[in-house]
């Protein structure tokens, strides 16, 4: 495990992500979503992206729903179908993804070295 980073903005009780990630030497998981502190409802999606040569990998997004006191974790059928299609097409998609997004460093230095936002005093 390299690091876990959560950067959130809060506007009128609505908590939304600025950056949410879990970085390990083998995979980086990016999260997006929001939690409403008034209604206590939350909705987050976590997408894994493997590091290195990652052909034929199943990368189904994990969805977190429910409320702050009772979270539900699950995979959606449409996400599973999409991830299977991506797995089959990975010899074509991965080189394109690598060219457009760039390789991910194993040590997560690009996101773990200085993950906090600058402090404005």
């Amino acid at each position, binding site marked *: 495990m390299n690091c*876990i980073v*959560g950067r959130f903005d*809060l506007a009128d009780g609505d908590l939304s992500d600025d950056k949410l990630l879990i970085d390990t030497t083998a995979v980086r998981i990016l999260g997006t979503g929001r939690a409403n502190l008034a209604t206590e409802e939350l909705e987050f999606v976590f997408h894994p992206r493997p590091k290195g040569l990652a*052909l034929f990998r199943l990368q189904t997004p994990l969805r977190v729903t429910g409320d702050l006191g009772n979270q539900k974790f699950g995979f959606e059928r449409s996400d599973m179908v999409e991830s299977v299609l991506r797995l089959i097409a990975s010899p074509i998609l991965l080189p394109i993804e690598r060219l457009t997004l760039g390789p991910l460093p194993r040590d997560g230095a690009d996101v773990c070295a200085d*993950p906090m936002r600058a402090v404005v005093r």
Partner: protein
Amino acid sequence: MAAPSIQIDDFPWPPGLTEPPAQPDEGGGLRGSASRLAGRTDRLLSAAFLRRFDATLDVNTKEVLSGSDRLADGALHLQLRDGHLHVDPAVVNLPGGTMRLSISYDLKGSEVEFAATAQVERFDYGIIARRLGRAKDLRGLFSLDLKLKGTAPSLDAIMRNANGRLDIAVWPTELRSGVFNLWSVNLVLQLLPLIDPVRSPR
């Protein structure tokens, strides 16, 4: 007030401020505790109490002890003027690092105006966990940057209308990432043992 040493055990909580007994239907967990703490703080920081006097309090201590354990050192500047409570800064130097906090609390009519900031930079939480005897193999660093501002009828409702930001970063050194790595599993390597049972996947 300056003291080379403060013994926590010399300051027991006054009976009126101690936690009321939990009701059977009272919510548990972190949110329940936060709500009870906010309610208790609301009772303590009532308008009648805060507007009774003005005060300035400066505390500097070189060590805070609990029994024979050295917990921290730190400084606190607190000002109460016209019912407006202002704490800036409250700095605590613990064995794992430094925590800095500032709080502003103002009662305006029937509403509470609250603002808080907190900063923790690369705090070694393993030292505290080991000191509390919670986990011997828990190691890592932790950073926090919190800015919070809100107005609400009571302190426990502040978060429902609050604005600000929260940054958290954790660098665990003893946390295995196997469960996350499995998430992006290579199906070909996992299915290989079915075809060739002698060799296990790498």
